[in-house]
């Protein structure tokens, strides 16, 4: 290894170590904001769905769409094939709509947003620097002028509280707003694309989401436009006994490009909260979407009490030739995660990539992975999954790679590694491989191991403590994925890796 390499690594690792030191609490986003809320009654039925629709001033076609989803959902049974265990969820014991009272009248600008809300974002600290941006100040991490701007849509419980940089985006022709606004302002686009990637009937949670989603983000990038800044949505569940059901729809029209970041947190609560989101990406000819997630929902305490149930359906449809999508996820939070961001590679020469770090500690359970469905010719996909399991946690990679008969000369490469810390946790790998033509090639590799004793000893011998050494090694293990993240997220993710594993050794 060259000297420069060593220095770079030391630099990076030092940041991680620093992050571990500075974060006193185990889950630093565990505060709740005391804001007067307006709730809909608990439970889900046609009246609740109509109420949600009415609260969002939706046109009747939208209300009907929701009602047809509800009708379907009522006939469905909750799936149980994932390797996760949790007590039965009473779907009638959840508030499907909660909204800060101050949002009754829609704020026209951020200045009109309840200061307490903004304070919440302030408290959230490091991760996205949204609070800076939300406040309208354009400064970088270190206080210097930042080159890259990030436009943010923040969703607080069920409703969007404000989108930044709207004018600047508008000048570029990019639409970035809450989905409720899009339904009112751009009904043709919404009608054309909503449910076209994840149909209402897709699965239990997606169907429920179609009926009761309250808000979410909407992005449309017109043909040939390279979105001038990173777009970001920040999700926060605050209210107790509330489900969050956001819906995101991103359309990259021909030849366009957009990078989208998503961050999630929730307060510490003893009870489990439900999050069932749907994300749909439409990628037309020669367009590209990068979608990055740092999911840090409250994972529950050391004994597995509380935490978010995260049942999310994310899918990208590469409709046009040479369309590209890249999913990157860092999953450190939630008590239970059920999530498979997928790529439908329909266009010829389209490409799908999936980079994932899933960390489970204490009693967390994650069943996550991806589906790469190759339909077009010369399509390519790449999967890099790093699962880390500590404490009493269970971490499962579940994935599908499918080459259809017509997807000639397509390629897939999958690397799927699991790391175990401690002998009470589990790591599982369940890939499905389906190849139906001979000119395509699939390569799948998976390994499971523990943190290498020799590496640990080497660190110790050089004076590095147990937790720091583990954080260092785990960060090295995740490097391929961390590198795929946009810079703003990479540092945060690295810090999260260390924080999530606190208390897992020794």
């Amino acid at each position: 290894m060259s000297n420069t390499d060593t220095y770079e690594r030391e630099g990076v690792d030092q940041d991680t170590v620093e992050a571990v030191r500075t974060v006193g609490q185990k889950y630093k986003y565990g505060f709740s904001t005391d804001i007067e809320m307006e709730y809909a009654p608990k439970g889900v039925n046609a009246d609740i769905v109509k109420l949600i629709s009415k609260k969002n001033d939706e046109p009747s076609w939208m209300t009907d769409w929701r009602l047809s989803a509800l009708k379907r959902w009522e006939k469905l049974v909750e799936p149980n094939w994932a390797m996760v265990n949790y007590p039965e969820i009473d779907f009638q014991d959840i508030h499907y709509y909660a909204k800060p009272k101050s949002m009754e009248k829609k704020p026209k600008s951020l200045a009109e947003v309840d200061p307490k809300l903004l304070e919440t974002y302030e408290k959230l600290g490091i991760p996205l620097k949204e609070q800076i941006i939300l406040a309208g100040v354009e400064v970088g991490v270190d206080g210097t002028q930042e080159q890259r701007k990030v436009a943010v849509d923040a969703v607080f419980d069920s409703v969007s509280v404000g989108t930044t940089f709207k004018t600047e985006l508008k000048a570029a022709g990019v639409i970035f707003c809450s989905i409720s606004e899009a339904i009112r302002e751009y009904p043709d686009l919404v009608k054309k694309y909503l449910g076209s990637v994840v149909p209402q009937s897709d699965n239990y949670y997606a169907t429920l989401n179609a009926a009761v989603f309250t808000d979410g983000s909407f992005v449309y990038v017109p043909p040939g436009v390279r979105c001038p800044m990173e777009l970001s949505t920040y999700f926060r569940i605050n209210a107790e006994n509330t489900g969050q059901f956001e819906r995101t729809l991103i359309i990259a029209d021909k030849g366009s490009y957009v990078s989208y970041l998503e961050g999630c947190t929730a307060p510490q609560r003893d009870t489990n909260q439900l999050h069932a989101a749907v994300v749909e990406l439409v990628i037309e000819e020669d367009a590209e979407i990068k979608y990055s997630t740092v999911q840090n929902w409250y994972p529950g305490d050391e004994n597995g009490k509380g935490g978010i149930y995260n049942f999310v359906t994310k899918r990208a449809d590469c409709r046009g030739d040479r369309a590209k999508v890249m999913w990157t996820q860092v999953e450190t939070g939630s008590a239970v995660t059920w999530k498979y961001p997928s790529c439908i590679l329909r266009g010829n020469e389209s490409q799908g990539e999936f980079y994932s770090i899933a960390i489970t500690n204490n009693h967390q359970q994650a069943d996550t992975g991806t589906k790469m469905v190759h339909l077009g010719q010369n399509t390519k996909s790449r999967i890099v999954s790093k699962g880390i399991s500590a404490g009493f946690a269970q971490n499962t990679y579940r994935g599908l790679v499918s080459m259809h008969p017509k997807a000639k000369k397509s390629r897939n490469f999958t690397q799927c590694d699991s790391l175990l810390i401690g002998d009470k946790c589990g790591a599982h790998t369940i890939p499905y491989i389906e190849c139906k033509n001979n000119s395509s090639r699939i390569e799948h590799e998976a390994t499971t191991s523990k943190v290498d004793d020799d590496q640990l000893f080497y660190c110790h011998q050089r004076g590095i403590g147990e937790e720091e050494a583990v954080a260092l090694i785990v960060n090295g293990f995740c490097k391929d994925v961390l590198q795929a993240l946009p810079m703003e997220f990479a540092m945060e993710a690295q810090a999260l890796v260390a924080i999530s594993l606190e208390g897992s050794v020794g």
Partner: protein
Amino acid sequence: MPKTNLTEQKISSYSLPTEASWAIKSRKSALNWLETTGLPNRRDEYWKNTDPSYFNTIKKPERNKIDYVENSIFENIDRINIVFEDGYFNASKSDELLLKGIEIDTISVANQKDNHWSANYFGVLEKSSQVPVERTLASLNTAFAVEGLAIRITDKIDKPISITYLHTNDTSDVLIHHVIKIEKNASVTILESGGVASRSNCLMEVFVCENAEFDHVRVQGRSHEKIAVTHLFANLLKDSSMKSFTLTVNGKSIRNEYVVDINGENSKAHLGGAAVGDRGFSQDDTIFVSHNNPNCESRQVFKKVLRNGAKGVFQGKILVKDGAQKTDGYQISQGLMLDDDSSFLAKPELEIYADDVICSHGSTCGEIDNAALFYLTSRGIPMAEAQDMLVLAFLNDAIEEISDESIRTIIGSRLKDWMVKRHKS
């Protein structure tokens, strides 16, 4: 047809034999499980890629064209030969069964005796292998199979025991159930070969005791029309080892299930398989290897060469239980597709609850490597021969799992034979 209805009809087409009480107890227990659970159907996760109706139906299999009536592929090996003809033990064609270190009875004899050694073993592994995945075709076998062998090995046996299954009746539909126990420090090689029957359901329960060795090579006959489901259940005690290799050439639908329970320290289980086929060939290896104790090793090496509409399925799982530290588990499944209308479907699984382990799996599929093909032909090797070389090279890792060199050669020549015929068809 509803599941229970099919199961009921299937059950009513057989009857329980009159035997010693321990045998009846085992059979009734299997029957009870079959009745409550039902035969597999297409909606079962474990039957996602292979249609169980080939094995489930009550009516006799379609009249088979028996394209190969063959003596054992192992004919030239010095062995103890035991012959089954269309599923029935044939004493006159078999060698003498009274040999030092070996006790062999047919199960129809053994199950009549009140105190036969197999009383504690018949149906035991089949029963314990019903969780977490139901294998009711095996229950069907335990409940109704009246043919098969109870083999007990008490010494190191040099000569392989070769079981030859002659297939002459074109509508034969058989159940065969073997129980094998290899006592402490003993070892044996079991060879199986032949077409068995038009439809067969063969089951083998193998108990490998302390420091014992079990070597198993199976060649499933060449008939294009045969339908076969097999179960190999093995239980390994400490310091023991097993090796099992299966060659499948042709067939309509072949499903080989393996359940290996590693129950002692320092044991090894190696499973290998090579499958080649065409013309609507459907071949499925479904494997479950469970590491219940520390310091054990397992290998799964399965290769499939597919052509002309063939389908290759692999479902293999390594389970490492809590406490099974220092496990070394490896699994590779590969499909080589020689033309464009074949398919390869794989589900290689790892389920791991211990941290100090080295477990990995790989799975690939694709066509012949064109760079290698060009390299070979650029050295003057004709295209067809170059392809054959690469096909054999592809299968090589699996064949290497056979310990005996002369058997490896026999397997290699059977594969070459298939390739020569392929060029003609």
